[in-house]
């Protein structure tokens, strides 16, 4: 039996559900493979035939235009056939169970599910119950994980900082509700950064967050001091079932990233945001559009990283590697 559901017996990637349990070598392989794919988008014909004949189904139980589009583009650029199931009008909305929906799609000979779901563990559940030849990629599940987003963030950091050793990274904002932050923290620590700081009011920090290998701070100036990378997070109001904040304006005053706050970081700091941005809530427009911002590069890198992950999980590895 494989020691980890994500890996084959030979240690190759079979599913991509979480960063947890993956080692530095495998994460680096994802980044290196993504690097290889960056040129494809610049070709006149933006396609390579690696996944020709494969069928990839996007199962988006939760809306996300950006993530869904980059997964579709990635699959298309690998020459796979890709279809997106509109869950709002699908059989699950008519009462069919998730597993019955999966069984029906399996019967149509699909090769991969890309799953986004509001419930933590949904992608893992599908990976456990789907046919052995099918791979599952988690495109975000509840408050649990968003591993491809984390890897495209790592890819963007590596593009600018060349290596992870010695880097200080600050993640700012709604850590509590952020699956992206969880995956980022795991990836940053696995790749060997010197320090990961999380900066947020106590109400937006998970209990015992320090156990994740981070330094928790409530003060922006202290938190941003000498950091190489600042990752801002969106306030996930849709996940807040009670009052976590006095007001958005007060949050911006204390935790919003402005030009002034950025002066506490290193001069060559880069500013990231997984999007969508709430301008004037967690980040000032001048910073989001400023020279330190790599937010749009993150979006571009999303396609290459997803191409890499899709290729690796469907890569076979049946023979000599």
């Amino acid at each position: 039996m494989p020691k980890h559901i994500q890996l084959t017996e030979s240690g190759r990637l079979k599913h991509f559900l979480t960063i947890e349990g993956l080692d530095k070598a495998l994460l680096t392989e994802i980044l290196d493979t993504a690097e290889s794919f960056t040129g494809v988008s610049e070709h006149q014909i933006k396609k390579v035939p690696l996944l020709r004949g494969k069928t990839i189904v996007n199962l988006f139980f939760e809306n996300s235009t950006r993530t869904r589009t980059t997964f579709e583009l990635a699959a298309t650029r690998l020459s796979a056939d890709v279809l997106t199931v509109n869950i709002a009008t699908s059989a699950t909305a008519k009462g069919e169970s998730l597993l019955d929906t999966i069984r029906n799609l399996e019967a149509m000979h699909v090769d991969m599910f890309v799953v986004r779901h509001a419930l933590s563990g949904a992608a893992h559940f599908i990976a456990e119950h789907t046919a052995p030849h099918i791979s599952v990629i988690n495109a975000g599940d509840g408050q649990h994980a968003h591993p491809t987003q984390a890897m495209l963030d790592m890819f963007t950091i590596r593009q600018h900082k060349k290596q992870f050793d010695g880097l200080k990274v600050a993640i700012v904002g709604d850590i509590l509700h952020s699956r992206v932050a969880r995956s980022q923290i795991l990836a940053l620590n696995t790749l060997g950064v010197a320090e990961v700081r999380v900066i947020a009011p106590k109400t937006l920090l998970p209990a015992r967050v320090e156990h994740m290998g981070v330094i928790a701070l409530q003060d922006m100036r202290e938190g941003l001091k000498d950091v190489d990378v600042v990752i801002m997070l969106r306030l996930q109001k849709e996940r807040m079932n009670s009052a976590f904040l006095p007001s958005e304006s007060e949050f911006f005053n204390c935790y919003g990233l402005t030009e002034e706050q950025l002066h506490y970081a290193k001069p060559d700091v880069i500013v990231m945001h997984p999007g969508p941005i709430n301008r004037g809530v967690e980040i000032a427009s001048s910073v989001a559009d400023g020279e330190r911002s790599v937010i749009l590069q993150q979006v571009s890198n999303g396609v290459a990283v997803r191409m890499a992950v899709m290729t690796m999980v469907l890569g076979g590895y049946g023979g000599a590697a």
Partner: protein
Amino acid sequence: MPINSLDLENLLDTLESDIRRSIKERKLDNPLLIGIHSGGAWIAQHLHSRLQLAGPLGLMDITFYRDDFSQIGMHPNVKSSQLPPQLEGRNIILVDDVFYTGRTIRAALNEIFDYGRPNQVLLAVLIERNGRQIPLQPDCRGVRIELPEGQRIKLTGPQPLRIEIQTLACAA
């Protein structure tokens, strides 16, 4: 020719003269030389200099176009192809170090046609060996040799450029 007497300079001389003859016979105006990573690229660099071609050298990594992806997966660190954006109507001299099964060339042709429809493609290889599996063959060659099953020929380089015969037991 005995395998142990393969001399690189002699093979390059033969290949160069074979290509010059083919350029003349097939009237290849302003040909674009494309080397296939990695051995083919090294040979193409030598030929580009010897033939004194005007345009830049094209380089190609066929990893994305291999037909054995589902068996062996993909290695990271693929070198991106460096080709002109338009290959439409161009005369191309495609260069590889060793021609064996023909599958590498099939992959290279698929990639070339993704950039456009060339006028003519001339295939030039330093060494052609037995073992062809698909109906493709070189137009120009430095030498053709027979290798027993279980042996392969490999070019190492780029400095120094050397030809090695390996047995599959240690090469696999």
